[in-house]
């Protein structure tokens, strides 16, 4: 195995294309190093993308935020403006592993590792994040929910990798939140994860809602029916019940060491309700 | 004579005798006497039994004294983690 740390996107794309399929992108390494150690992957080369300026840091402008794909979760969580704008995304990022993992893990890595249970992905989906993908044909933008196609699989083409994310500036009276269920309080993989992002009109009625759902299907899902259940409501009990039902309805989980099918389906609805309530409170608190 | 109480598996091996009286001034004498009285029991006695003499447990202690009126229990040896 070789190790390369290119300084530009172009150079990285070339390396990835050259070693087609046998090169592995290294961002925070918190998943990759475990796989290397366990012998689950044996790349010819690891391409450390952290030396590429575009992959690091947070920028903001009138339209919103751009985050470098390899920026560590700890850096993102410490960014005051980003945390204020997208608290749900930040709490999801902040739940990826321990403090130690936070110092290394990145949103790009969490997405491209393509685990159905990645914490940041449902929150990013709810937030309507756009993924910036670089490849031999240049850069393209893709909604975050279109990247992962199955456990361990992505839609990225040969030589492509994720360089960053765009998140819009949150509208007035909007809020987002993320909750997950784990057996302990920390250090576990989500059994269910739910991200909700919503906006209210000046009367407190929900005008926009997106629900992202993790760990209950081969990929994280955008649950459109769940969002629709909230729109036009003040998140009263029937609306939350409809939300829970819509969320549970799309679950296609498996029985595994982390939870049963029945458990995941039920808890997905419970968490959707609880997450929406938090997002709702945040939206109301963010009254312009 | 010391009173020796057998229970559970040991009692089965001793043909159902729950209690016997034996002449023994220490643990080794007791084990010998028991083994002679109950040949079925003999091979088990060297395998991890502790001796409770008047309530106090002795392990691997051949010369722990047994009084003339002592009550003696055979108890599986305990090791612990």
């Amino acid at each position, binding site marked *: 195995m070789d190790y390369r740390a290119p300084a530009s996107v172009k150079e990285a794309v070339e390396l990835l294309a050259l070693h087609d399929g046998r090169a592995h992108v290294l961002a925070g390494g918190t998943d990759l190093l475990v796989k290397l150690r366990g012998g689950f992957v044996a790349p010819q080369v690891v391409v450390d993308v952290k030396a590429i300026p575009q992959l690091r840091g947070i920028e903001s402008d009138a339209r919103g935020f751009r985050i470098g794909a390899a920026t560590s979760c700890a850096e993102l969580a410490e960014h005051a403006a980003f945390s204020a704008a997208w608290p749900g995304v930040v709490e999801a990022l902040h739940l990826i592993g321990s403090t130690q993992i936070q110092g290394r893990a990145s949103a790009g890595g969490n997405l491209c590792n393509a685990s159905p249970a990645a914490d940041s992905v449902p929150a990013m989906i709810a937030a309507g994040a756009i993924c910036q993908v670089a490849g031999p044909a240049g850069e393209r933008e893709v909604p975050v929910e279109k990247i992962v196609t199955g456990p361990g699989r992505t839609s990225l083409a040969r030589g492509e990798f994720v360089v960053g994310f765009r998140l819009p500036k949150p509208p007035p009276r909007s809020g987002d939140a993320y909750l997950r269920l784990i057996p*302990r*309080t*920390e250090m576990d993989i989500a059994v269910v994860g739910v991200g909700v992002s919503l906006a209210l009109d000046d009367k407190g009625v929900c005008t926009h809602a997106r629900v992202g759902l993790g760990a209950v299907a081969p990929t994280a899902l955008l649950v459109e029916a769940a969002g629709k259940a909230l729109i036009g409501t003040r998140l009263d009990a029937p609306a939350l019940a409809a939300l829970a039902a819509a969320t549970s309805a799309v679950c296609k989980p498996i029985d595994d060491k982390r939870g049963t099918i029945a*458990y995941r389906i039920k808890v997905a609805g419970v968490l959707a309700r609880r997450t929406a309530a938090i997002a709702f409170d945040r939206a109301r608190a963010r009254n312009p | 004579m010391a009173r020796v109480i057998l*229970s559970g598996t040991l009692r089965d091996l001793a043909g159902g005798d729950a209690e016997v009286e034996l002449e023994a001034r220490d643990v080794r004498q007791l084990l010998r006497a028991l083994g002679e009285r109950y040949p079925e029991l003999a091979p088990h006695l060297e395998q*991890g039994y502790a001796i*409770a003499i008047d309530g106090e447990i*002795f392990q691997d202690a051949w010369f722990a004294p047994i009084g003339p009126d002592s009550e003696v229990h055979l108890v599986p040896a*305990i*090791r612990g983690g």
Partner: protein
Amino acid sequence: MNDVTMKGLGERMWKVVGTRPVRPDGVDKVTGRAKFGADLNLPNMLIGKVLRSPHAHARIKSIDTSKAQALPGVKAVVTSADFSDLPSEFIPAGEMMVNFRDMTRNVMAREKALYEGHAVAAVAAISEAVAAQALKLIEVEYEVLPHVMDVAQAMQPDAPLLHESMYTIGMEPKPEKPSNVAKRVEFALGDVAAGFAKADVVIEREFTTQPVHQGYIEPHACVASVSEDGQAELWCSTQGQFIVRNFCAKLLGMELSRLRVTASEIGGGFGGKTVVYLEPLALVLSRKAAQPVKMVMSRTEVFKASGPTSGARIWVKIGATRDGRITAAEALLKYQAGAFQGSPVQPGCMCAFAPYDLENVKVVGFDVVVNRPKVAAYRAPGGPISEFAVESVIDELAGRLNLDPIEFRLKNAAKEGTKAAYGPKFGPIGLVQTLEAARAHRNYGVPLKANQGRGVASGFWFNIGGETCAALNLTEDGSVTLVAGTPDIGGSRASLAMMAAEELGIALDKVRPIIGDTSALGYNFLTGGSRVTFSSGMAVIEAAREMIRRLRERAAKIWEIPLDSVAWEDGHARAVGGAKQVAPMPLAEIAKTAGKTGGPIVGYAAINAQGAGPSLATHVVDVEVDPETGKVTVLRYLAVQDAGRAVHPSYVEGQMQGGAVQGIGWALNEEYIYDKNGRMENPGFLDYRIPVCSDVPMIDTVIVEVPNPRHPYGVRGVGETPIVPPMGAIANAVANATGIRFTDLPMSPPRVLKAIDEKHAATSK
């Protein structure tokens, strides 16, 4: 808040015992200097690795190591052919008897691989990478056999047999066919049928527990070096360097004195480091390669090939009168032994009802082999499993009788003179005192909210003594080196040095304790059975008394007076009885002239410590259950325990707190999960969920002191009892929070939610 309740003292003024000094090995451990198992490197050292069975049960038809042997950089390859077969012979080990025929098969599979992770071959090479490559070149031909994982299945007449020649011991009539049941044991007192007939209320329940791992953070590790003349050195992380020496010498056919074993600092054991895994392999590899060999397990190997303790099925039936007196109790325990016989079912039987004063008791246990790693001792081996079940039924009975759970236990508590269900009468024991202290504690009165519940459980463990040596060497400047033979897992160098300082009457910092290797002292049984502060402490006190006798002799010679005219007080020799008017002579002064007065002054004790007193505990826990997710949160936790005498109270509390949190893990989340092929699905700390810091509250403690009359300072072991009550206490708390009795561990969120939903479904019908 941590409290110490003093009871029944008044015999002497303690100067050192009962204080909380900084431990003597502490600085090494906070600076990274302390050397643990994997921290030793020797010149010319090779790295050894183990090839392990991917199958839960398979006949090994052939092993071809020729390609691995031929790989450049590979220095030795071993299989079971490198170990002589040993006859069936039982000797005492960590928790009960060990059979060398089984042990040699467990360290290296012989005819069959009996569990996933069972060692099949091992290599030593110039680097870890080469060793790993060599493992891939070893060709093993397996015939995969049907496997069996659960005791109920394993006890079926048509179950796949692990050992074709195993016949159940303890069955009448003797079985004619082999089976997976190694042993039946029974303990009985009185007449249970008559007892149940007198009961007004009888409750019987079935329980299951899953295997749980000791979960020490340091993986097994060792370095072996065998020279061309057969002299061997072994460095390893173990709870007993002497038992490692004896096991390895037996497995390798060596003379004991030719193998010197040094115990490294040990990064946790909890019973799991009382057996050998890598050590004999490293020695054989080193003997073949004539170079030092280091071996370290990965975490995956630790889970798949070492530990755990038994999973079990338990049936308990208890009857009581309306006024709260238990009339009869009965239990049936079936414990997984793993691939070889030797589960802790026997101590499990003996502990089951030990906290209670009962006239009619019957407990039957079965030791059952299954295709899982051979169980190893785990903190009070066997006790937590049976006592979880018993404490659950006790609690339910208290509820049925409308009695406070502590009150009900007090009405039936064993005390001094109580005849234990397993036979003997107890000496002074502290259950009543722990119950009373728990009831008086502020935690017992905190009001609870919706979905919250409080649970109580008590626990018992025997504690042991055993063979022990200690040496005290007086140096010329009056400081003392202390050599103990029991590895220090949780601060015992502190407690031993404190007892030496107390007895000699000198300052604690004048005593420097170390753990000796196997050539430094006579035989020591291992660190286990909560025996170190008790037994090594007893040996240290005896060694100090011997040293004091010699100090008095020297003073008597110097003063030219008879020995019995010299007393030892506060670190000084004093002339007494008017023989001579001289100023007391401090220890340091006698030390300075020791060479001129007869040579170096030492104290040595070699004993077989008897009279270990049981330690009893009562725990009280408050939990909150999320009714929509089934998640249980521990809100408050109180552990009360009888320590006899707390030599260093901080480390006694540490045992209580650590055991409680291990128990929380056992109760709520820890379990071995296997797929249908008998392969473990969660062999790592990600999915084998031991409690993390944010999972638990502060663990409040109260130390009760009911001195053990058979120890010079009143000490009882404290290390194991704390893991006994938590599972029962938490199950009882969850029952009080939800109205549902949970009988299966762990009470993980899916299981709890399922029960809650089923209850709702039943009540809404």
